């Protein structure tokens, strides 16, 4: 960045400071030897990492979050990819309306959806919180599955499938041998995006927690409110490390900016 545009450059620096510096401070306090969130940290130690890894509520919540994110992602793809096919390849009445309907969970505030599912399904129908969480997260991921794989499908030539059908392949065989491989990058992007979104979600999961099944972000929020020690900083640093791994995988496969920014570079 040359300084030929001093105003733009200083605003840009300010923007990066606001985005990145708080994250660096989390990492710095995670390695403190002291017992408070004081800055500068007192000494260097790994004691808070040991504490976090030995703290059962966090480990249980981590496993719950991973399980939920994985199941919701798979479910959203299994349900969402056929919807994409129906929209782009089928003779669907009111195509635009159907597509809009599947994108609608993106517009309604997640906290409102969470309240609706809590009140109507958990209290009204007395369902356990795990199936309700799974329904909620799957609904929230459907727009990604439909829109991201839809973008791949729009680029794929329907003539290829017709050629396969003309050569005698059944519709199912044509899908698995021709269409699905064409969709692979879209499915991968949608899956990664869904997994991360589900794993990090707070507003939807907030009201849908129970003693037996709680997600990690919600458990961390509760912990911060009760005690003010660096264990959450250590847990955050572990999550940061995991997120960096996912970002690197995304970059090496489909391209980071393309998946998460919708930017073709």
């Amino acid at each position: 960045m040359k300084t030929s545009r001093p105003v733009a450059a200083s605003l840009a620096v300010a923007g990066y400071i606001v985005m990145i510096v708080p994250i660096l401070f989390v990492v710095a306090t995670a390695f403190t030897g002291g017992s408070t969130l004081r800055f500068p940290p007192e000494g260097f130690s790994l004691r808070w990492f040991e504490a976090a890894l030995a703290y059962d509520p966090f480990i249980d919540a981590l496993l719950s979050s991973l399980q939920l994110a994985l199941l919701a992602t798979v479910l959203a793809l299994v349900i969402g990819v056929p919807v994409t096919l129906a929209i782009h390849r089928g003779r669907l009445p009111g195509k635009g309306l159907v597509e809009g309907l599947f994108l609608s969970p993106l517009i309604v505030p997640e906290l409102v959806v969470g309240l609706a599912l809590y009140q109507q399904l958990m209290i009204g129908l007395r369902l356990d919180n795990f199936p309700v969480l799974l329904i909620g997260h799957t609904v929230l991921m459907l727009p990604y599955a439909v829109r991201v794989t839809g973008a791949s499908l729009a680029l794929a030539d329907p003539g290829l499938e017709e050629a396969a059908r003309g050569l005698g392949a059944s519709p199912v065989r044509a899908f698995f041998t021709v269409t699905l491989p064409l969709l692979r990058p879209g499915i991968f992007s949608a899956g990664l995006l869904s997994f991360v979104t589900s794993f990090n979600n707070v507003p939807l999961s907030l009201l849908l927690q129970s003693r037996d099944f709680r997600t990690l972000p919600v458990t961390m929020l509760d912990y911060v409110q009760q005690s003010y020690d660096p264990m959450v900083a250590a847990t955050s640093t572990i999550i940061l490390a995991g997120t960096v791994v996912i970002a690197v995988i995304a970059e090496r496969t489909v391209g980071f900016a393309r998946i998460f920014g919708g930017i073709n570079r």
Partner: protein
Amino acid sequence: MVSRRTGLLALPGLALLLAGFLIPSIAMLFAPPGVSPLDIIGRLGRMLTDPYDLAIIGRTVGLGLIVTAVCIVLGFPIAYLLARSTSRWAGVLLALAIFPLLLSNVVRTFGWLVLLGSNGAIGQLLTGLGLVDRAPQLLYTELAIILGLTQLFLPLAIISCYSAVAQVDPGLDDAARGLGASRTRTFWGIVVPLSAPGMVVAATLVFAGSVTAYTTPYLLGGSSQRMLSTQLYSYSSVTIDWAAASATAIIMTVLVFAVSGLSAVVGRRGATS
């Protein structure tokens, strides 16, 4: 694959959408258990006249507008510099701007607790430099919420602005400069008007995100700086006042729908003019 039956593939998805989203949402908004729609309308009316509730709505909308403005003012220059840069560092900086989107909001917001807390870095710095005798109260203020929400939504603003600026032909910049326009005049006369639709999208996303965010007002605003989202949570799980919860949910949803609709109208007008 083009057949009448292909349309049936949308059915499982539609069923999930109806049972797991549309029906529960409509039932919650207009007919919660033991509450008549009239109760909700009454509660909505009182909220829109009561000074305490109005202050919360005002804070939510006000902070949303401030955060939107800050995100555009900081995000557009970043998008502009990155889109126009030929440096190989531009790709790294773009990735650095998008990366926070993948990171948990709890982790990102927690950083401000470390920075703004009573023993936090900023307070220590101010007292250490002798600028103030005692660290000022930074946490649980509107400033803390603005900082937290700006950090959260700046990446979204950058991405939307970046796509818009990248579509503006750099040849136009060169032409304007060649005709004698200053760099500043080229920026305001060419780049900004042509990437305005991207800014509208960015502003909509940031505003809708800010007025519905929960983690940031909860951690950085506490109980002294209530917003619609924290209020909605306490009506649903602390006081269990379904009528108030539905009324708050309606206000929040209408806010988001209104701003999305407005941006669609502005975007269409921009496209036809």
